[in-house]
């Protein structure tokens, strides 16, 4: 498998097409947060909305334009974190960051399992310029969660 094929694994190609969570619908959940992120190298962008139910990331919806890596990565993360706790999503994020920094190698421990489909992005780590693409959605997710949490707290106080 060439580096290029390692980068564009079938899993990634599939995610780039099916795009889980694509479509910015209204979320009717206790705490909703949104984030808009731009990859300034290329102008790619994503708007991502997250709905929390207590500590659970109940729903992720997004709209974006970008390369197959960025689109597939958002799709994969949507699948990974929906229905899981904020803490778990944070762990997956940390594992994904570690993978990106690993220069094309699997992490070689149980984090590889935790990453599920996102593990297929391993090949991106060989291309520093593309790591930003793979992380764009994650930036949006974490920022949106922070906003949702802030909104939730405010909701409680004022609600």
């Amino acid at each position, binding site marked *: 498998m060439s580096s*290029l094929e390692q980068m564009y694994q079938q899993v990634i190609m599939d995610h780039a097409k099916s795009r889980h969570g694509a479509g910015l619908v209204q979320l009717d959940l206790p705490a909703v947060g949104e984030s808009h992120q731009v990859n300034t190298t290329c102008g790619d962008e994503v708007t991502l909305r997250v709905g929390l139910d207590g500590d659970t990331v109940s729903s992720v919806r997004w709209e974006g334009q970008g*390369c197959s890596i960025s689109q597939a990565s958002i799709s994969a993360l949507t699948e990974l974190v929906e229905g899981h706790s904020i803490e778990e999503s944070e762990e997956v994020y940390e594992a994904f960051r570690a993978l990106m920094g690993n220069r094309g190698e699997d992490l070689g421990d149980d984090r590889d399992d935790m990453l599920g489909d996102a593990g297929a992005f391993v090949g991106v780590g060989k291309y520093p310029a593309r790591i930003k693409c793979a992380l764009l959605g994650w930036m949006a997710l974490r920022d949106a969660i922070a906003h949702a949490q802030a909104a939730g707290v405010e909701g409680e106080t004022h609600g």
Partner: protein
Amino acid sequence: MLPDLRDDFPLLARSVRNGKSLAYLDSGATAQRPHAVLNAMDEFDRLHNGAVARGAHLLAEEATEAFEGARGSVARLVNAASPEEIVWTSNATAALNLVANGIGNASAGQGGAASSLFRVGPGDSIVVTQAEHHANLIPWQQLAARTGATLRWIEVDDLGRHRLEQLGSVIDETTKVVAFTHASNVTGVVSDVAAFVARAREVGALTVLDACQSVPHIPVDVQALGVDFAAFSGHKMLGPTGIGALWGRKSLLDVLPPSVFGGGAIMTVTLEETTWHPAPTRFEAGTQPVTQAVGMGAAAEYLMALGMEDVAEHERRIARIIREGVSEIPGVRLLGPVGDAHDVLGIATVAVDGVHTHDVGQVLDDLGVAVRVGHHCAQPLHKRFGVTGSTRASAHVYTTEEDAERFLAGLASVREFFGVPA
């Protein structure tokens, strides 16, 4: 006709991904440097480095001579009236900002009556074009914001050519500055400078030419063009990074207020007050990019030895191959004039249906073909073409037909790789 020059450029001998030889088609972003340039800089640093125009010693003398000699070489390349019309800057962006910020300072009253010809303010307009690189757009946008002047622009047609019929209406008696590119870094289209200059003169506006993509590739005679200022970079004309140049008419440069202040640029300084030198010194505050000037001078000499007519002819030939080739690849759209256009440089920029430019670039990179992806610092033009990004192949003196063929073959394989239906 140019001989094969690849051996002059050490970097082109290296191999890239998968042990592939390098097809370097990113010269529009930054060019490679010939031995002649690298050796001139290395020799300067190893033998002649000293403080220019300051020390009283032999090295200072030799360094000053090398530095001013380089100014002369660059002056000759663009046919400046004298070396004093060349101001060293850190890149073309800085050169364009030097003019815009100088006008800003004049508008705020600096330079007094002598500089009043540069004043702009509410009611005045500054004109740019839709084809501009951000470097020749944002400084004017900011100048307009700062002075209360209005920014206007000349649009381009579907092929990226300026709509010259707008010159008469967009440029009017309120226009103080017309800033436009000599050649687009996206489409490669060469502007009709004479038309711009003629209209600007009618209304008494200053003309500022972004010559970043022209000086390295075609004969440029600033006096014949009739503009007032022209900016270009060392690193795109086979010279080093860290240097650029502003050419300007001496009579204008001498009264344009500086906007970067420091040692060397001033006549006398008290704690209260300062008086400036004439150009170019007034703009060259602090220690100058001396080694880089030597490199840029060597690059100018290298290009002049090749002959700019031959350089242009060579690159036009490469462009023809690429431009004709891409038009035969299904799902690939060329931004700018299609086929063998007479007014287009060695640049071909494409959008691939259904494949993002990053992904296109990645496939080409894997094949050893280096191109540029993104908006190439020309977002308004991309918006005009209805795309957010594109993939650009750009040639220089060392580009071969084989490079062009490899680009075309790679491009042809992209949509299949990503499984886009034909």
